[in-house]
């Protein structure tokens, strides 16, 4: 498991690097530094998807969360790589090369665990079932996104639902997993991560991430 520990860390490192590029750009527009945006916002100010703040759980939980996100991420970045905003297009094109690798790894793990032993199959299916309700908001454009989509700057996330589901279906078929039936989706009522309404887990993550710069506000690293 040491190898997979390193793999998860490396995926995290890629995502952290990408987040820095996005936050630095957002900060230039917004007038706040990348560190200010990362360390001094409250949970209600974060606009991340609910899916990515869910706990690590067991390894099937971690992989299910990673895969469902990666499969969406790769589609969004491919769209953003053709954004009319050249800075967004450049960051997305860079991130895309990394995220293609992420989805390849996480989809292989979904298949290995799903089509593995009875125990691993059961855990993979349970993890997928539990996380499915957080996948709905990935495909719903927030009011603030719509003008950007129309202007060709942001990705049309609603149009990505069909290709995302097709990719998920094909991986799940190979993994002998059942695609959960769509029922209640968190955030679908306009009260989800994109509106700053989060699950309790985000605050715990932020507490750990933000404690140092908040305790020593002038610290430099």
């Amino acid at each position, binding site marked *: 498991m040491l*190898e997979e520990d390193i793999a998860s860390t*490396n*995926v995290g*490192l*890629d995502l952290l690097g990408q987040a*820095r*590029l996005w936050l630095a750009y957002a900060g230039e527009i917004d007038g706040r530094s990348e560190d200010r945006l990362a360390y001094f916002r409250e949970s209600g100010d974060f606009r991340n998807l609910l899916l990515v703040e869910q706990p690590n759980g067991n390894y099937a939980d971690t992989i299910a969360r990673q895969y469902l996100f990666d499969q969406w991420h790769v589609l969004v970045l491919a769209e953003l790589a053709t954004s009319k905003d050249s800075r967004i297009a450049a960051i997305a094109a*860079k991130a895309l*090369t990394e995220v293609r690798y992420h989805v390849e790894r996480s989809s292989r793990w979904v298949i290995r665990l799903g089509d593995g032993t009875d125990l691993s199959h059961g855990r993979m299916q349970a993890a997928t079932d539990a996380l499915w309700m957080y996948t709905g908001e990935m495909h719903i454009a927030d009011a603030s996104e719509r003008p950007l989509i129309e202007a060709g700057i942001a990705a049309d996330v609603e149009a990505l639902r069909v290709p995302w589901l097709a990719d998920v279906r094909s991986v799940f078929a190979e993994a002998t997993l059942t695609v959960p039936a769509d029922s209640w989706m968190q955030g679908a009522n306009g009260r989800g991560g994109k509106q700053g309404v989060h699950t309790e887990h985000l605050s715990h993550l932020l507490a750990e991430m933000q404690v140092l710069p908040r305790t020593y506000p002038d610290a430099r690293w």
Partner: protein
Amino acid sequence: MNLRNAGDDVARAVWTALGAIADPEIPVVSIVELGIVRDVRCGDDECVVTLTPTYSGCPAMRVIESDVQSALALVTNRPLRIVTALTPPWTSDAIAPEARRKLAAAGIAPPGEVSRIVFQREAVRCPNCGSMRTEEIARFGSTACKAQYRCRDCLEPFDYFKPH
């Protein structure tokens, strides 16, 4: 000598100095050989060095920038500006042929050509015994740019520089 030529001379000296900077994580190759240095432009009032990260979260970028600062201070007294370019994204195809040989000699299997392996699994040659009977142990290795492999003939584990 006109100013333009003087600038070119400085740029040549800068390229030479950059070529002597080892990559912090894979010190057998230089940052120029890895394709991290995109451009050098020396004008009368400053030198601009354009770098591109291999991976957007590469933790070595800061070290590389500070290595560039100190190396160039020895070659030119013009102020140095380091610019980071993301476009076009770095790929392992930017690694110079000589650097690939150096990687292999250091026990790191060099990457295959990205364009050739997109739709098929790559065949990786063991850097220790040359066997093609190798298998992947993990998709990621000791750094973001490497995967872990094992040779089924000499049984040695080794790093594979990912085609990316």
